[in-house]
């Protein structure tokens, strides 16, 4: 496919690792892909508040309650950054939310799993944030400026979250037999869904090639998944936990861990809306949005009233 001079120039800038900013020319597909990816990322942050938010009222100590509350608040903040970044490309937050609430937009399907114990909070910080970091660190060098800068802020906070999650797991593994069993049970339930966070296998992944060409994506799904496993195995050993994968073993030749096959049936079912909590997550977001409509309307109405009361001079400020 031949490219126009603009496209050619655009690709050259990408290849030179230059940043693309909001006012720069960009192919329409690039804009669309970025809006889709950034909004999915934003939606993920927002929906991701729910499984963890589920344990705030039951956090077992004041310190943990505080940390968890701050973590979930950070996620709200990440959502804000990312919606704002998407808006630099001409998207509107309202439209993006409307798509989410209508079930038309995706979000990371890891959040469609239930948090069933306090250990899940540790597992999410340790595994899910761990996986998210692997996805996001490369994005700190992604081609689109606002996205890269948002990612820098997100990654800083997320590595803090991951350490806290690991610390929860560590405390449980050093605790009573019941606490250790709780930690192992959480790992058993979150391990495979976390591996699914890296998406389908490379040979089944539609967007990858072009996203990599545009430096929206810097590593393939399988590359990241492998990196994640390699990182996690020693950490699990350190904790004294067993990763629920009988096929897991060190491969001396490749210097990586071989691991079992993801249950792709489960993957596609969850992605397509049939996971354990898909409906609950979406309903919670829709409910919050609808229940809050009168609040948002009131804020607008009040702001308009205020403006109308200003003198013409004041209004010009």
């Amino acid at each position, binding site marked *: 496919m031949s490219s126009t001079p603009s496209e050619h120039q655009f690709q050259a800038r990408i290849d030179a690792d230059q940043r693309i900013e909001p006012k720069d020319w960009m192919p329409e597909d690039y804009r669309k892909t970025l809006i889709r990816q950034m909004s999915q990322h934003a939606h993920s942050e*927002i929906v991701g*508040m*729910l499984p963890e*938010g589920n344990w*705030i*009222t*039951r*956090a*077992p*100590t*004041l*310190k*943990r*309650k*505080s940390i968890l*509350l*701050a973590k*979930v*608040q950070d996620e*709200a*903040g990440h*959502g*804000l950054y990312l*919606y704002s970044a998407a808006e630099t490309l001409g998207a509107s937050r309202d439209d993006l939310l409307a798509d989410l609430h209508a079930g038309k937009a995706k979000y990371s399907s890891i959040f469609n799993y239930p948090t069933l114990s*306090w250990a899940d909070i540790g597992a999410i910080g340790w595994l899910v944030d761990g996986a998210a970091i692997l996805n996001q660190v490369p994005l700190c060098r992604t081609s689109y400026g606002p996205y890269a800068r948002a990612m820098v802020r997100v990654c800083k906070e997320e590595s803090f979250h991951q350490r806290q999650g690991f610390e*929860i797991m560590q*405390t*449980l593994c*050093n*605790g*009573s037999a*019941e*606490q250790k069993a709780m930690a192992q049970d959480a790992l058993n339930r979150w391990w495979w869904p976390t591996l699914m966070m890296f998406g389908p296998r490379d040979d089944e992944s539609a967007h990858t090639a072009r996203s990599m060409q545009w430096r929206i994506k810097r590593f393939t799904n399988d590359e990241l998944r492998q990196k994640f496993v390699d990182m996690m195995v020693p950490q699990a050993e350190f904790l004294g936990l067993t990763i629920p994968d009988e096929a897991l073993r060190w491969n001396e030749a490749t210097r990586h861990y071989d691991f079992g096959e993801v249950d792709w049936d489960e993957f596609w079912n969850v992605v397509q809306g049939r996971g354990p909590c898909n409906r609950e997550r979406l309903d*919670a977001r829709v*409910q*919050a949005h609808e*229940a*809050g*409509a*009168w*609040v*948002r*309307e*009131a*804020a607008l*109405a*009040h702001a308009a*009233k205020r403006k109308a009361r200003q003198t013409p001079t004041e209004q010009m400020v």
Partner: protein
Amino acid sequence: MPTTIDIPPTQTRLLPYVLQLADTSLMLAHRLSEWCGHGPALEQDIALTNIALDLLGEARHYFQYAAALEGKGRTEDDLAYLRTATEYRNPLLVEQPNGDFAVTVVRQFLFDTFHYHFLQQLQHCADPTLAAIAEKSGKEAAYHLRWSSEWVIRLGDGTDESHRRIARALDLLWPYADELTTPTALERQLHHEGRIPDVQALRPALRAHHERVLTEATLPLPQEVWPQQGGKEGRHSEHLGYILAELQYLQRTYPGLTW
């Protein structure tokens, strides 16, 4: 109702009073934290969580001080998590359910108006720990008060619906406002000993602020009502039991562990 017998000054312990302050901030923080992920927009989610975190931090300071005063080697968590309903000493207002956003805003407004003015006074109290907590938390309370006052105005002078909702919220929660500035026997005694502010003396300042904000919000100042009381003396509403069932669950189910 039998009245509490006045305790001679040498025996009035600060501990139950510090627990009262701790429980108050804890319960409100807990209620606010229930909004997490369910707010009308991300900005309010973040704001409510900010207030919750501030109050939780304040509560932790009081609990840590209470544990030290108790001198039995117990921790902030032992005190926060292991008492029964009648032993909690928060006023009724802060355990009321979140309701809709208007109810949450009014609850916050009534609390913040009191809390800010109270902490302004508590900063000068003789106890250096309480004074230090009050100074730090007083700065936060100023922000909270601005936030909740602005929202009362925004909702009161917003749309017909928001006006209706916040008027209803005011009507619902006004009976709980008085308890904040009605001293218990313990509070009277401690004030008599010069150790804590006179909360009743805060009333004119509170009323002035209420009037200013409600007027700008185009809301009527609620009429005098029979005040609901008892929380500071351990007589709670039916709501507290359910809060505690969730709050305490892990500590009760796995006693004595580290988390």
